[in-house]
């Protein structure tokens, strides 16, 4: 049992995270406080939610979807505008965001399935279409004030406490939503036939077809799901920032994809876990927070991620090579 645990990617990731936490706390004890932890969990909820969707895409077939940030951006804008004009409550907002996001994601799924093109090429195209058209329609305008319901949702705190300088802090709802998404994702992936179909298709799509698995529906589900989650992530983001800057979500694709890959998802498809995805995002959240607490400018974050990704993929590929070499080819007998 222990051996199997050691073999898993997630164990190493968890160890690395623990090491990082310890290291950062030693240098700056402010890291390991409720306020700080709750803070970065809240700000990384958006990335975390999008990562769940990206996990499904990677399991399905390896090449990542890069349009989800554009989808989130469009949805964010849309719901901001709609709620400014027509009001609404947080539930209708989530519903609208989910539906809109899912629809945009389905477009991806449809094109990829019908025309049999690599995911990355189609999603590069749709990214540019969604993002470009958003700018054309909105002329790049910011929306500075949004419907107060977002602030209400964003500021709702569990376990509220007062900090020494008078502000309140506590656990926001966003990390809980993130957790909910992880659980839902886990349930779908491990406990439903749909989820197993995704894994099966990722492993051997022709065999899946032969088995009678509905490949088109499964594919549409995956891309719709990513879109839906991107919509949800947009609401989360809007609730935190309470303003719409049309190019702020876009640019996070790398982070999300890298987090999922570091969490153990294979670029060849068929493999990946929710635990790993969570740990991957957590790692980046801690890195970001740690860098800030240690006094580095935010510019270094990209460099840090780049180094981490490069190291992770090198180690992973190297392990793969070693594994191949050590495979039992012939049982040599005396």
């Amino acid at each position: 049992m222990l051996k199997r645990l050691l073999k898993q990617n997630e164990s190493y990731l968890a160890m690395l995270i623990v090491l990082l936490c310890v290291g950062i706390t030693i240098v700056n004890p402010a890291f390991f406080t409720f306020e700080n932890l709750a803070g970065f969990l809240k700000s990384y909820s958006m990335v975390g939610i999008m990562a769940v969707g990206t996990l499904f895409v990677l399991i399905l077939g390896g090449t990542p979807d890069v349009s989800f940030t554009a989808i989130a951006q469009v949805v964010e804008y849309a719901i901001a505008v709609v709620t400014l004009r027509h009001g609404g409550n947080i539930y209708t907002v989530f519903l609208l965001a989910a539906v809109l996001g899912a629809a945009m994601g389905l477009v991806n799924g449809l094109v990829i399935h019908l025309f049999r093109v690599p995911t990355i090429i189609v999603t590069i195209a749709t990214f540019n279409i969604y993002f470009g058209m958003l700018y054309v329609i909105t002329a790049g305008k910011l929306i500075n004030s949004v419907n107060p319901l977002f602030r209400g949702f964003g500021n709702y705190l569990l376990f509220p406490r007062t900090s020494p300088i008078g502000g309140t802090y506590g656990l926001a709802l966003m990390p809980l939503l993130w957790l909910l998404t992880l659980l839902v994702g886990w349930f779908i992936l491990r406990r439903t036939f749909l989820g197993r179909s995704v894994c099966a298709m990722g492993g051997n799509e022709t065999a899946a077809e032969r088995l009678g698995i509905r490949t088109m529906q499964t594919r549409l589900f995956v891309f719709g799901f990513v879109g839906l989650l991107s919509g949800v992530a947009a609401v989360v983001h809007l609730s935190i920032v309470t303003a719409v800057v049309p190019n702020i979500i876009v640019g996070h694709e790398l982070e999300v994809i890298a987090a999922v890959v570091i969490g153990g998802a294979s670029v060849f498809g068929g493999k990946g876990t929710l635990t790993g995805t969570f740990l991957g995002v957590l790692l980046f959240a801690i890195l970001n927070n740690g860098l800030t607490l240690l006094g580095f400018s935010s510019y270094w974050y990209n460099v840090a991620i780049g180094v981490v990704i490069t190291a992770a993929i090198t180690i992973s590929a190297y392990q793969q090579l070693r594994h191949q070499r050590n495979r039992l080819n012939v049982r040599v007998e005396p």
Partner: protein
Amino acid sequence: MEEFLRLEHIRKSFVGVQALKGVNLSLRKGEIHCLVGENGSGKSTLIKIISGVLQPDSGEIRIEGAPVGHLGSAAQTGRGVQVIYQDLSLFPNLTVAENIALAELKSRQSGLIRWAEVRRIARAAMARIKVEIDLDAEVGELPIGLQQLVAICRALTSELRLLILDEPTASLPKHDIDNLLAVVRDLQRHGIAVLFVSHKLNEVFAVAERITVLRDGESVATLPSAELTDEKLVELMTGQAIQHSRFAYAKERGRPLLGVRGLSKRRNFENVSFELCAGEIVGLTGLIGSGRTELALSLFGVSPAERGEILVEGNPVRIRSVKDAVRAGIAYVPENRLVQGLVMKRSVVENATAAVLDRLLSRLRLVDPEKKEKVATEWIRRLGIRVAHPDVAVQTLSGGNQQRVVLAKWLAAEPRILILDGPTVGIDVLAKSAIHGLVRELAGRGMGVLLITDEIPEALSNCNRILLMRAGRIRGEIPTVGLEPEELQKRVEARA
């Protein structure tokens, strides 16, 4: 015994090709029946029709006496007919339990998965053929013999009446072949009929009760296996009696071209020593998993050895890469022509000249297109490669012609030592003897040939001596003069 399946006058044509011209087949319940035929005889088409993937143009199909109307693979599965293709159609990233149970789960239309149920289904299937495989192992990590058993277990999860195995033993080591044959007999005891499609004649005879021979889209004979011999079978398959002439080696042994001493590589082979002289065709035979291909790949530089010596014409050489091997005069024609031997989408010229680009340079160290063209056309001519234009992609060529392109590639490199790994696998008998003739001619001109083969007749008729390999070591060396096929077969399969 009652009849389970009957096919009458099945005809099927594709665009421009009449694949099946009136095939009859009958299978009894619980029978082990073999379907043999050369490439292009229509075996795979027939299998697809039986399993419901394709519809016949005309003819009747009856299952248990009742005529079967419009077939579909799902319907046929419902009637208990399943096929295990050569690629096994498994999911390498999923566990054994899941692979076995997935088909059943799909047919139950269950939305939710209960893992306890999955394991139960898997265990039940394994129990039926008395095998035990770790339920949580990843199928991709299993050796291919076990993967095949997983595939069979999966077929067993539904009501199975007829199991069709498409070339099941093609890449199995001996131990697993025995296992498989035992499982097949076990299935028979359960009343499940098994249709074996194979070209490995010795296995066919080991297990089949009746054999149906297909040739050119027609079923030429259905006979009890007891009434057939190897020669008779080959004659039925090809329509002609092939004379196996034996290779006549020159009286005096030529100079040693290749000397191998104590060559070893962990998990591949151990302490291999032998010599190959000019003009010899030395056979290297043994069951799959004995290390033959691994040895060849070490000599060729793909997977360099860890210990031991390799001498070419008496001089020790270091072979750490393909380039080293080629420089030493060694060439290797690989087992898997499609994947390892040729780049399918590129032209005949490109493939034929791939190994010798170094020798086609003009001034400025650039490859001279004229020289390239000349080399390619010369070898096309010398090897009789039938192709409309040298710039067509090799994937449009027939199997035999494709193999000739691979040979051309290496002959252009003018090797001293030629290693052929299963050179005539999947090639029909006529093209086979053409290639054998070619190889003998090369030996006659002073090349040293190491012929790795599974097929006893091929080894016997082409080699002057045979090296036996088993479990990573050379177990013996036998001159072929006066050697009978049964004797060789026995020694190959011997445990000690």
